[in-house]
C-alpha cells in the first residue's frame, strides 16, 4: 500500500475513533473516509443483546470495513472486539452452502426442491399419523422478528401445535417472570438513557465488562465524569468488571436471595424506604400470592437480618449493611443483571427481590433509576418475547391461554381460531425430553445449537439421534448438525433484511447488503416455502417481501403494551431504532414506561393517576408487587462428595456455542480452549498446579480439562466457560429448572475436581 494512502487511512481511522467520543481530531476527515469507493450501510451488531449500531462498509461485492455507528444512541460509534470480526464471520469457511439430506448415514448435497419436499412429506406424515403435537419448533433469540413470526404462524396457526420454543427460554425466561409478577408487564421500564443519570449501579449475576462491553463502557465513562457514582457487584466470581467496583459481595453460588432480603431489611430499618411511594404504588404479597401488609413483610424479613444472611450466603453482614446503605443513600440507582440471576431454579424469585429493592426505595420511574435486565442475544426481546416465540405466547405479548388473544391472532393469520391450541405447548426441557421419549417425532431447529447448549446436554442426544431433525443454519458443522437428518443453509447477517429488538425495547432495522453465500436462503422464505409445500399455500403465498411480514406483525401489536405500529420500515430505515411503545408513525418512541410521557399512562383517566407518579397498568390496581419469597437454595447444594459449586459462563472473545466466533481464527486463537478456574487455596490443598490436566465431575458427567489457578472464583467455587464442544461444560450442568420460568439452573451444580 502506498505510504500516502496508508497515512490517509491512519488519519481517517484516528478521526473516526475521536469522533466516537465527540472530538473533532482532524476537521472534515471522518467524512472523507473512502467517500468514493466504499458505500456504508447502517445496521446492527449480530452478537449480544446490547444492540450496538454498526456501519457496514462495502466495496464491490465485498464487505471491507466495519465502523461503529456514530449516530446510534446506544454505542455512539464504539464497538467491542467481537464487532471487530463481524465481517470474518460472513466469510467463514464453515458457512453451510447447500441443502443436504442424510442418506445412508452421510450428508448428500441436494436441491432446494428435494430438501423442502422431503421435509414437508415427513412432517405431514408425522402430523397425520401422530397428531400435530408430535412436531415441534426450536428457534432462537438471534433470529429476526420476521423469521420467528413465520415459524410461529406455521407451527401454532397452521400445523396446530404450541410446541414452539426458542433458546431465550434458557437465558431470560426468569427475567420475563420477574417483570410480569413484580411490575405486571414484561421488559424494563427504563432504557440505557438511565445510565447517564444513575448515581449507583448494582451489577448482580452479570460480568458486564466481558458480556455487555459497550454498556460497561457507558457506565465507566459516566463514573469517570462523576466520581460520586458508585458500583456494587454481587457475584461469586471476580471478573474484569471488578476494575471499577466500589464494593464486591461474594455469595456462595445460588445463595444470594438472602443477601437481597437482608439489603431490604437494612433499607427499611435504617429509614431509606420511600414510604409515600410504597403507599401509593406498591402491594405486598406472600409467596402464595396472598396480600400481606407492609408490617407483615417486615416481619418476614426478620429471618434475613444481615447476620442471618451471612450464615446463609457467606457474605459478611457488615458488607451487606454497607451495600444496603449505598443503595439507600444514592439519589438514583440502576440494577443490572443477567444469566447469574436468570439461570437458576429460583430465577424468577431472584428477579423479584431485585425489583423489591427499587420498589421499596421508589428508585424506579425517574431518570437514573430502574431495575434493568440485560439480555444475551440480539433479538431475544424483539423476536421471542415480543414476537411470542415461546410455547405459551402469541405475537404482541399475548398468551395462548387467552381466548381473545387467540381470536385476534387467528384473524390476522387467516386461520380458524380452533387451530391455535388453548394450552401451552412443551417448554424447552420438556420438549427435548419428549423427543427422547419419542412423543415428539419431528423437530425444526432454526439458528441455534441445542446439542451443545442444553443443560446436561448428553441426556438429550438420544432424542436428537432417534427423531427426525431438520436444522436451518448458516454454519456447518455444529454439535447439533451431527444429529440432523436435513440441513438447510440459511442466509447470515448482512445477507438478509429484518428487525432486531434489543435489551432496551429498541427495534432496529438491518438491511441486506450482500447476496447470500452459496445457495443459502433467508429463513423466513425457507419457512414460507416449506409451509406452502405442507399445504398452507393460502396462508403463506401472500408474503413477498420482508416488509410484508413486518407490516402484518406490527398490525398485531397495535394497542398492545409493546405497540410497534408506528415503527414502519420506512421510518426504521432512517432512524437508529425506536423504543416502544410507538403507537403511531409520528410518535417518537418511549423513554420510560408507567410514567408521564408513556402513551398508555397519558391515556389513563385522571382519577386513576391522581397523586401518583407511576401507574403499573399491567396490574389490576396499577400497583407493583413487593414479594416475600423464601430464600431457597440451589437445586444441588454442595456436599461432602461434591464439595465445589461449579458455575459456567462466558469470555469476551467468544459467544455462545462458538459457532460464529470460533469460525474466526483470531478469536479462536485468543482463547483456543476451555479451562476450569480454581482458587489458589483450593488448588494447593488438592495438589493442582496451573495448567495441570484435571477431571471435573458432577453427578451427570466428567470433563477432562486444563486447570487455571487464579483468584477469580472464591474458594469452593469452580468456573468453566461454555463455548467449546470439545470441552463441553454442559455435560456437567444440571437440567433442574425454575418451576415458574422453566429456565434451567446452569449457574450452580455440585462438583468435585481432581488431577487427571
Amino acid at each position, binding site marked *: *500500500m502506498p505510504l500516502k494512502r496508508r497515512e490517509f487511512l491512519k488519519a*481517517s481511522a484516528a478521526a473516526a*475513533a*475521536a469522533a*466516537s467520543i465527540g472530538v473533532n*481530531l482532524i476537521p472534515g476527515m471522518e467524512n472523507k473516509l473512502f467517500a468514493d469507493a466504499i458505500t456504508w450501510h447502517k445496521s446492527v451488531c449480530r452478537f449480544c443483546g446490547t444492540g450496538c449500531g454498526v456501519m457496514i462498509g462495502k466495496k464491490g461485492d465485498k*464487505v471491507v470495513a466495519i465502523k461503529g455507528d456514530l449516530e446510534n444512541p446506544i454505542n455512539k460509534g464504539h464497538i467491542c472486539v467481537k464487532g471487530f470480526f463481524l465481517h470474518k464471520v460472513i466469510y467463514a469457511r464453515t458457512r453451510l452452502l447447500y441443502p443436504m439430506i442424510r442418506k445412508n448415514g452421510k450428508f448428500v448435497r441436494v436441491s432446494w426442491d428435494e430438501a423442502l419436499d422431503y421435509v414437508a412429506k415427513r412432517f405431514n406424515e408425522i402430523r397425520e399419523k401422530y397428531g400435530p403435537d408430535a412436531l415441534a419448533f426450536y428457534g432462537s433469540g438471534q433470529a429476526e422478528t420476521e423469521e420467528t413470526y413465520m415459524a410461529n404462524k406455521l407451527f401454532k396457526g397452521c400445523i396446530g401445535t404450541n410446541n414452539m420454543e426458542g433458546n431465550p427460554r434458557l437465558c431470560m425466561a426468569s427475567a420475563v417472570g420477574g417483570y410480569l409478577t413484580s411490575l405486571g408487564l414484561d421488559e424494563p421500564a427504563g432504557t440505557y438513557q438511565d445510565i447517564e443519570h444513575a448515581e449507583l449501579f448494582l451489577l448482580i449475576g452479570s460480568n458486564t465488562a466481558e458480556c455487555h462491553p459497550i454498556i460497561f463502557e457507558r457506565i465507566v465513562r459516566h463514573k469517570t465524569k462523576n466520581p460520586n457514582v458508585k458500583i456494587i457487584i454481587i457475584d461469586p466470581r471476580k471478573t474484569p468488571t471488578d476494575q471499577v467496583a466500589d464494593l464486591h459481595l461474594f455469595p456462595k453460588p445460588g445463595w444470594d436471595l438472602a443477601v437481597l432480603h437482608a439489603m431490604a431489611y437494612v433499607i427499611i430499618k435504617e429509614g431509606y424506604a420511600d414510604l409515600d411511594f410504597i403507599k401509593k404504588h406498591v402491594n405486598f404479597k406472600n409467596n402464595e400470592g396472598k396480600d400481606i401488609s407492609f408490617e407483615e413483610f417486615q416481619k418476614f424479613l426478620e429471618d434475613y437480618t444481615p447476620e442471618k444472611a451471612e450464615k446463609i450466603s457467606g457474605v459478611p453482614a457488615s458488607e451487606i449493611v454497607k451495600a444496603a446503605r449505598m443503595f439507600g443513600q444514592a439519589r438514583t440507582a440502576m440494577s443490572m443483571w443477567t444469566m447469574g440471576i436468570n439461570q437458576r431454579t429460583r430465577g424468577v424469585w431472584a428477579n423479584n427481590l431485585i425489583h423489591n429493592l427499587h420498589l421499596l426505595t421508589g428508585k424506579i420511574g425517574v431518570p437514573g433509576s430502574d431495575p434493568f435486565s440485560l439480555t444475551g442475544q440480539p433479538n431475544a426481546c424483539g423476536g421471542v418475547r415480543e414476537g411470542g416465540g415461546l410455547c405459551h405466547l402469541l405475537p404482541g405479548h399475548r398468551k395462548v391461554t387467552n381466548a381473545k388473544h387467540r381470536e385476534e391472532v387467528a384473524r390476522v393469520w387467516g386461520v380458524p381460531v380452533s387451530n391455535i391450541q388453548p394450552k401451552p405447548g412443551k417448554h424447552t426441557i420438556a420438549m427435548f425430553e419428549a423427543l427422547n421419549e419419542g412423543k415428539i417425532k419431528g423437530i425444526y431447529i432454526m439458528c441455534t445449537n441445542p446439542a451443545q447448549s442444553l443443560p446436561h446436554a448428553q441426556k438429550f442426544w438420544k432424542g436428537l439421534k432417534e427423531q427426525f431433525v431438520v436444522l436451518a443454519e448458516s454454519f456447518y458443522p455444529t454439535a447439533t448438525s451431527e444429529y440432523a437428518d436435513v440441513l438447510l443453509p440459511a442466509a447470515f447477517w448482512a445477507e438478509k433484511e429484518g428487525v432486531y429488538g434489543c435489551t432496551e425495547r429498541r427495534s432496529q432495522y438491518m438491511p441486506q447488503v450482500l447476496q447470500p453465500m452459496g445457495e443459502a436462503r433467508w429463513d423466513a422464505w425457507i419457512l414460507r416455502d416449506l409451509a406452502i409445500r405442507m399445504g398452507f399455500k393460502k396462508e403463506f403465498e401472500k408474503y413477498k417481501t420482508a416488509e410484508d411480514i413486518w407490516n402484518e406483525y406490527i398490525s398485531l401489536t397495535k394497542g398492545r403494551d409493546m405497540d410497534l405500529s408506528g415503527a414502519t420500515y420506512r421510518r426504521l430505515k432512517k432512524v437508529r431504532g425506536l423504543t416502544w411503545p410507538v403507537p403511531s408513525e409520528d410518535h417518537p418512541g418511549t423513554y420510560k414506561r408507567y410514567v408521564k410521557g408513556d402513551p398508555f399512562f397519558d391515556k389513563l383517566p385522571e382519577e386513576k393517576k391522581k397523586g401518583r407518579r407511576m401507574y403499573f397498568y399491567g396490574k389490576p390496581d396499577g400497583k407493583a408487587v413487593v414479594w416475600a419469597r423464601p430464600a431457597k437454595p440451589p437445586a444441588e447444594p454442595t456436599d461432602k462428595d461434591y464439595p465445589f459449586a461449579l458455575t459456567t459462563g462466558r469470555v469476551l472473545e467468544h459467544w455462545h456455542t462458538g459457532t460464529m466466533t470460533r469460525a474466526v481464527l*483470531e478469536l479462536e486463537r485468543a482463547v483456543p480452549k476451555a479451562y476450569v478456574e480454581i482458587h489458589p487455596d483450593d488448588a494447593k490443598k488438592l495438589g493442582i498446579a496451573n495448567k495441570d490436566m484435571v477431571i471435573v465431575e458432577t453427578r451427570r458427567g466428567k470433563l477432562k480439562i486444563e486447570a487455571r489457578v487464579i483468584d477469580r472464583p472464591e474458594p469452593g467455587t469452580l468456573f468453566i466457560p461454555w463455548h467449546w464442544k470439545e470441552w463441553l461444560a454442559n455435560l456437567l450442568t444440571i437440567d433442574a429448572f425454575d418451576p415458574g420460568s422453566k429456565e434451567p439452573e446452569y449457574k450452580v451444580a455440585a462438583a468435585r475436581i481432581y488431577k487427571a
Partner: protein
Amino acid sequence: MPIAGVVVVTVPERTSSVLQELKKLSNVTTYGVHKENNIIAVLESDTTKGLEQLSNQISQAIQGVIGVFPAYINFEDEISDSGTDTSTN
C-alpha cells in the same frame, strides 16, 4: 493491511502512564488524550489476527486500561484471503 481506530479508555489516574506505554509499541500510533481519560490510537498489523492480539495486549498487559473500543476497522486488503481456518469447529 488491517488498521483500526480505537479509543483506549483508562483509569483516570493512570492515563499518562498508559499513554507512555502505548508510545513504546511500534505498531501503535497515538493521537493524544481527550476528554480526560480517553486515548485515541491507531493499531496496525499485517493481519486482523495481529490487530486483535495487539488490542488484547493493550487491554491485558498495560495497567490502568479499562478497555479498548474500536470505532473503525478496515480490512480491505485482507478480504481476498477471507476464508478462515475453522477446522477445530
